[in-house]
């Protein structure tokens, strides 16, 4: 393969949406209503999808030929700027994770763009009295550019730049109908909440810059591992905060960015409100791609995380996944229900990353993106068909009116619930990804103290050389079934292991030597939520599509349109088939270099044959959650089979709990109380200080200055300065009067004066030299005498 072909294809895919954005901004109004949309579909995402497909197949070919590691190592880098001594490189991060994410984003985004054309036909494109149809697609294209740029960035600085750009696009798109108050407030909430997280990101970035001396992801990881092994650099610092070392703070800071973007507790509040935006936006940005950027970031900086930082990541993920799943149970708005479900699933991903399930978390990210985007589009179809009705209590029985939506939505429900047959390889996306996260967290919580179960494998991968030659065909462990069956034939490339070593796996080993056990309650919460998820998803599906129609008006109106259900069908097929066989191996390939951590190697790796702990975990999970989806489904169907009656009774029975959940634990109110009211209080105090202290001082100074000025003006100026000036003028005038007196203008006076003066001078001279004149006279008379 020609050199750099893949990078060029990726770069073209990134830049085409930017061109589309530019073109739509300037020529969108001329293109008109459907044409601008189709332009956005083709140039905003069609071309990137073509590039992504080309790259995907090129990459798979390279992997087969064993060239992928060389491609990763030789990926193009250029120096963009030099800050101090630190060069900021620009380049393409070319590895399996990029390829997988890139393909996922372009594929989903393309179908959502397509869906948007249909969606916007049914919606007003008037904002503040002007037609803004083209603007919607311009924003979507800009989002495509930013998101793809984020995925291919090889440098934390560029990652951050694109990170902010996707945040901006999110803001613009949530508030597309900015003349309405609800989207307006939602967009501001989203933006401001993200700023909180981004501040942490910036702190982490600065620590990386100052202590690691490079912002390139790979170089930073290598430096970090070296510093950890040698105890130098950031590890030499004695600074601690909350018991965290500086290295941990760096990891936590970077994670704060992910908390904002991926809406992790306690910064999750913006995501449900963001559903005020148009439904394609919710599907694209707030379900599939942008919110996954946080998870992607954590995966990218995984190598910069210390065990303490990872424990914090686990804690946040665990809290999010549990608390949000519980809220989803009581939601009645179909989009809000999906939003909380998204939050919970993002929590799973973050929890998985923190626990060391690097592969599983990213795999879950991709499967989740497919089915959640599909479900959001389905909900958009439902809302559209039901005349903008979002309340599930008014729906019901819609399967007759919109069969395609109903079936695709069901596929999504089955996928998110982790439906599959335990002990086999038959199942949908969530079945593999979520169980793998649970398996790893189980092993971390229960088996981790017995390090010998992991040591051999972790060690073996860390020092790949000795095992590489004799490594049996690799087996991948990831689901609640006998792993031997899907060991398949993804042979582990030896060079990837060596690559890991060259990236400082030895140093990484010393970081992770002190990784603590995961608290057991975290595992139990995740397990518990695995039962909750199927329940609320089945509840949503049943309330919407099954049972009897509860509102005739809504039911009468319901319909579906092909423009909108074609993407649904495509994504449903993708959910069922593409994810496991395609993406799981890709991510597993990336994990060697992407995580470089013995932790991940031990937990999820190919070392299955060496690690009994994973066996134990899977044996347990086979029993523990293998049937969770059935339990959840049956419970939901049992409660809502006959409409809302039983649900209402349960609601009354669990009154306080329901109220608590319905109000989202009062977190919004708490924020309102602490931040909004607190800010108002501080503002009032500031106003008081301003009025009574600052203003008072200022006024006092003003009055004093006024008095002083009056004194200066009246006394000093009038009598002092003016006095001198006028005095000089007056005295010279008086002097002039005196000296002009002799100037009479009469010649005789002048002659008289001249004569008089000459006479006086003559007499004076004579008198002064009277002796000399005597001598002179004597001389004269003597000469006369001669």
């Amino acid at each position, binding site marked *: 393969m020609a050199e750099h072909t893949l990078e060029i294809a990726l770069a073209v895919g990134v830049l085409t949406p930017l061109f589309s954005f530019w073109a739509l901004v300037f020529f969108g109004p001329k293109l008109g209503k459907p044409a601008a949309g189709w332009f956005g579909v083709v140039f905003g995402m069609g071309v990137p999808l073509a590039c992504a497909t080309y790259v995907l197949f090129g990459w798979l070919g390279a992997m087969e030929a064993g060239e992928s590691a060389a491609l990763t190592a030789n990926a193009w880098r250029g120096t963009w700027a030099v800050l101090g001594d630190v060069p900021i490189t620009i380049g393409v991060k070319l590895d399996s994770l990029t390829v997988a994410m890139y393909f996922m984003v372009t594929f989903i985004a393309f179908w959502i763009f397509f869906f948007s054309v249909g969606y916007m036909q049914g919606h007003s494109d008037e904002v503040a009295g002007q037609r803004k149809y083209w603007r919607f697609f311009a924003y979507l294209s800009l989002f495509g550019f930013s998101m793809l740029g984020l995925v291919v960035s090889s440098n934390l600085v560029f990652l951050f730049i694109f990170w902010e750009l996707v945040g901006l696009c999110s803001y613009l798109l949530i508030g597309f109908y900015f003349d309405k108050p609800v989207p307006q407030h939602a967009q501001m909430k989203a933006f401001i909440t993200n700023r909180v997280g981004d501040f942490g990101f910036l702190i982490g970035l600065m620590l990386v810059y100052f202590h690691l001396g490079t912002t390139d992801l790979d170089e930073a990881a290598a430096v970090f591992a070296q510093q950890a092994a040698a105890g130098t650099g950031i590890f030499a610092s004695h600074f601690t905060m909350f018991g965290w070392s500086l290295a941990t703070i760096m990891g936590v800071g970077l994670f704060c960015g992910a908390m904002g973007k991926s809406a992790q507790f306690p910064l999750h509040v913006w995501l449900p409100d963001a559903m005020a935006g148009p439904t394609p936006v919710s599907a694209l940005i707030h379900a599939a791609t942008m919110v996954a950027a946080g998870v992607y970031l954590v995966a990218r900086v995984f190598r910069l995380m210390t065990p303490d930082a990872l424990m914090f990541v686990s804690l946040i993920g665990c809290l999010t996944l549990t608390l949000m799943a519980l809220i989803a149970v009581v939601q009645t708005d179909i989009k809000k229900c999906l939003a909380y479900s998204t939050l919970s699933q993002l929590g799973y991903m973050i929890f998985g990353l923190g626990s060391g399930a690097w592969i599983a978390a990213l795999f879950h990210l991709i499967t989740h993106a497919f089915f959640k985007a599909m479900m959001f589009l389905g909900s958009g179809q439902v809302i559209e068909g039901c005349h903008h009705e979002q309340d599930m209590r008014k729906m019901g029985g819609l399967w007759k009116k919109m069969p395609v939506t109903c079936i695709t939505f069901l596929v999504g429900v089955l996928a998110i619930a982790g439906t599959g047959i335990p002990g086999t390889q038959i199942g949908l996306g969530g079945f593999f990804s979520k169980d793998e996260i649970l398996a790893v967290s189980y092993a971390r919580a229960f088996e981790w103290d017995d390090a010998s179960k992991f040591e051999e494998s972790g060690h073996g991968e860390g020092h790949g050389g000795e095992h590489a030659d004799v490594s049996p065909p690799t087996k991948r462990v990831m689901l609640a079934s006998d792993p031997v069956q899907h060991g398949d034939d993804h042979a582990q490339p030896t060079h990837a292991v060596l690559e890991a070593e060259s990236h400082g796996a030895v140093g990484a080993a010393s970081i992770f030597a002190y990784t603590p056990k995961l608290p057991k309650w975290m595992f139990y919460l995740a397990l518990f939520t695995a039962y909750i998820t199927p329940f609320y998803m089945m509840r949503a599906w049943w309330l919407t599509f099954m049972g009897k129609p509860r509102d005739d008006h809504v039911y009468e109106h319901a319909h579906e349109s092909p423009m909108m259900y074609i993407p649904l069908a495509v994504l449903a097929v993708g959910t069922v088939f593409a994810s496991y066989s395609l993406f799981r191996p890709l991510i597993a390939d990336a994990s060697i270099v992407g995580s470089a951590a013995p932790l991940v190697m031990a937990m999820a790796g190919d070392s299955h044959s060496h690690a009994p702990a994973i066996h134990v975990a899977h044996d347990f999970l086979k029993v523990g959650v293998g049937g969770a989806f059935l339990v959840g489904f049956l419970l939901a169907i049992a409660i809502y089979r006959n409409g809302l009656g039983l649900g209402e009774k349960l609601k009354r029975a669990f009154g306080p709990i329901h109220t608590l959940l319905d109000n989202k634990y009062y977190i919004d109110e708490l924020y309102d109380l602490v931040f909004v009211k607190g800010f108002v209080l501080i503002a009032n105090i500031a106003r008081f200080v301003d009025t009574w202290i600052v203003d008072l001082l200022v006024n006092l100074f003003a009055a004093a200055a006024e008095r002083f000025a009056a004194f200066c003006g009246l006394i000093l100026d009038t009598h002092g300065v003016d006095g001198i000036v006028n005095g000089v003028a007056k005295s010279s005038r008086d002097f002039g009067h005196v000296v002009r007196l002799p100037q009479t*203008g*009469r*010649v*005789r006076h002048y002659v008289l004066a001249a*004569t008089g003066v000459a006479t006086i001078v003559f007499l004076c001279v004579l008198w002064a030299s009277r002796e000399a004149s005597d001598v002179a006279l004597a001389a*004269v008379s003597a*000469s*006369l005498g001669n």
Partner: protein
Amino acid sequence: MTIGLTHYLVVAAVMFVTGLFTMMTKRNAIGILIGVELVLNAATVNFVAFDRYLGPDRLDGQITAIFVIVLAAAEAALAVGICINVYKNLSTVDVDRANSLRG
């Protein structure tokens, strides 16, 4: 009686005082000019007399006298020009009327 230096000096003094008196008393510009000529010529007489009696072998006084005569000629030309201009402007040569530079 031998005519000596003193006689010359007396004649020159009389001329000088006469000229000075003329300058003081006359209001006619031409009259004043005549007074000035008298004063100048008194000085010339003195120069020639002192040269003759105090330094007969030197020519300083003689040369100065010639110089004064030339100077007087130039001065007379200039002064008469001024007088003509005064007359043109004021229609008179009365110097008391030409007092616009009075202090």
